[in-house]
């Protein structure tokens, strides 16, 4: 019954792709590090690999596992083979990783972020035709600064009953994320970039972020630059999301807004996500959980990981293959109404 559903879904997607297409290898076969993850990770990764094979995408997969190990000096780090592989290939695709509670080590995602200096989290949110939500015309991208801001983790207990948490904004990080945002807009034919801030209240910190965005905007005159308060963005987003294009913002606002936008298109089970790091490293991932209760039962929905892989193809410049796989995926979702229940389980 449902077990066969995903097997048949995957084969339908593959069937949709198998239509005759001329073979075009843009740069030869590229190797990508694949981190299957935990829970449903391995099976959705296998599904993605099969689909890519059917689409004849010039990708070769190098599987690696990521667990936290204690390195010399007592610091937690990822296994050296994984790090080597990523540094060599520069591009990675990652499934959901579990963080056991009270494991003594920080979350795996945090470890990866620190290891590769993944400073930008990019989430394109596009309404999926076959998946009905109250919002039908969403087509925006949220670019979130991922290293500092409110999530710096610097907190102190000043006196008993008074706690302070420090939000850190630096010139360097703000400039870097703004530059990435404009580059992204330019490379993906986006018309405008909106900086989201709360500078009326946090004058110096968000003020610095805004100033950097304005400075970078000067070098990208072909992309329109606007600024909007966080509350205005939230207000307008739930009324008319079609007015937004690319949004760039510091860490906390990015966290809230990217999840808000994911909710608009159907949740974390259908949202792709990419993390861009220094030195050209990019890791694309699915942001949903590991769903251990449905692992191994062929029930999991590979949409999020598949769309992240499509995002990866676009990042590598393989737009033709990306379009082919994406169209096949959307067609499958449109035809298969049953996929929606599985997706909501994952969220």
């Amino acid at each position: 019954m449902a077990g066969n559903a995903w097997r048949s879904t995957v084969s339908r997607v593959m069937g949709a792709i198998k239509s005759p297409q001329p073979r075009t290898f843009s740069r030869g076969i590229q190797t990508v590090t694949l981190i299957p993850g935990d829970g449903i990770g391995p099976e959705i990764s296998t599904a993605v690999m099969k689909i890519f094979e059917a689409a004849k995408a010039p990708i070769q997969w190098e599987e690696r596992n990521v667990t936290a190990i204690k390195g010399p000096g007592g610091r937690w780090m990822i296994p050296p083979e994984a790090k080597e592989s990523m540094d060599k290939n520069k591009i990675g695709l990652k499934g959901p990783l579990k963080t056991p509670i009270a494991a003594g080590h920080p979350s795996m995602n945090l470890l990866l972020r620190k290891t590769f200096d993944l400073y930008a989290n990019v989430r394109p949110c596009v309404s999926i035709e076959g998946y009905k939500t109250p919002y039908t015309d969403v087509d925006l991208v949220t670019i979130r600064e991922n290293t500092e801001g409110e999530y710096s983790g610097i907190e102190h207990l000043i006196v008993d009953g008074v706690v302070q948490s420090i939000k850190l904004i630096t010139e360097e990080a703000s400039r870097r994320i703004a530059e990435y945002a404009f580059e992204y807009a330019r490379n993906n034919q986006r018309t405008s970039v909106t900086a989201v801030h709360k500078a009326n209240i946090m004058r110096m910190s968000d003020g610095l972020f805004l100033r950097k965005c304005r400075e970078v905007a000067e070098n990208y005159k072909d992309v329109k630059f606007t600024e909007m308060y966080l509350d205005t963005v939230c207000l307008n987003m739930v009324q008319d999301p079609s007015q937004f294009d690319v949004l760039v913002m510091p860490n906390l606002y990015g966290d809230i807004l990217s999840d808000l936008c994911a909710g608009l298109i159907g949740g974390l089970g259908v949202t792709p996500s990419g993390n861009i790091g220094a030195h050209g490293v990019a890791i694309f991932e699915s942001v949903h959980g590991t769903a251990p209760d449905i692992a191994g039962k062929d029930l999991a929905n590979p949409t999020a990981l598949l769309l992240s892989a499509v995002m990866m193809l676009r990042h590598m410049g393989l737009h033709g293959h990306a379009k082919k796989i994406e169209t096949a995926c959307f067609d499958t979702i449109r035809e298969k109404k049953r996929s929606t229940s599985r997706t909501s389980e994952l969220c």
Partner: protein
Amino acid sequence: MHTTVMMAALTKALKPILGRHLGNTAKGQIIPPPAKYGGRHTVALIPGDGIGPELLNHVRELFRFSCVPVDFEVVHVNSSSTSEDDINNAIMAIRRNGVALKGNIETNHTMPPNHKSRNNLLRTSLDLFANMMHCQSLPGVQTRHKNIDIIIIRENTEGEYSSLEHESVPGVVESLKIITRNNSLRIADYAFKLAREKGRRRVTAVHKANIMKLADGLFLQCCKEVASGYPDIEFDSMIVDNTTMQLVSKPQQFDVMLMPNLYGNVVSNVCAGLVGGPGLVPGANYGRDYAVFETATRNTGKSIANRNIANPTAMLLASCLMLDHLKLHDYANMIRGAILTTMNETRLHTADIGGQGTTSEVVQSIMRIIQSGGPLTTEI
């Protein structure tokens, strides 16, 4: 039961002798009765910028028409002046009167950091610790989600809005988010009391304690402590990013929501958008001694100012909340009923909710309904 009655009587007897303090410690928070002379209340009115002045004029017009026994003391605040005299005058007027109705004062964020937001200054000086916003789906308004009925209670004085920032090293700015036990307990207490008063069954605390373990952790802990004293009300918590996702897919699951300052800003704007926009929802800021009423989303609306297209509903409903606070319930219900009846007429919807009506048309319609309702009114 009997002991509380005795305590109340004892408190009342001793009050003139021992002043307010005994009353406060014995019964909790007593808000002194608002200024009332000759049966008429005086309320401070701060027009603000953008659409504030025109909407507040409509409020005054409506009150005059309906013979509401409220006089307004108008205090202007010039948002572009750098001195704090204007806002201090406004604060003093509010202290004098106890109640205020205000429009939003614009903050020019290109000014240097020592020029603080005027609205924020007002809230912190008067210690208006609770911001209450009631989001309800209005029957006449078309929205994507139906049957929303959420009360949002937001801590109004601390959190990320502490305005404590410094540049420790050139190029590195730190902004402090302060959470204190006292304020968190206070706002949680307010939320549960309100929930009980209004017969609500569940309070949800919104936080990000998985990342900000100490700060939001403290807030959450205080909420849990207060919740244990209200066993009849269910308490749960949700992380803020999950909350926004749930709000856009299934907002009907929320009842009362309680949160610190910044998340309150985000969530209240999302909810206002869900029920139809910034022109429909009123907001109230309550402190121990003072109350200030305004629109929930605090927009200046510069782009639609003075064009007769702003939606007066939010400001008018805020004035009804004010009348309720002054215990003029009959007038409040009369005006509120007239507003809701007008809302059902799609012809009179303003541009923000998809219609083509003008502000004055809406106000005229409300006045007509009030007049036809019977009580004494002046000429239209």
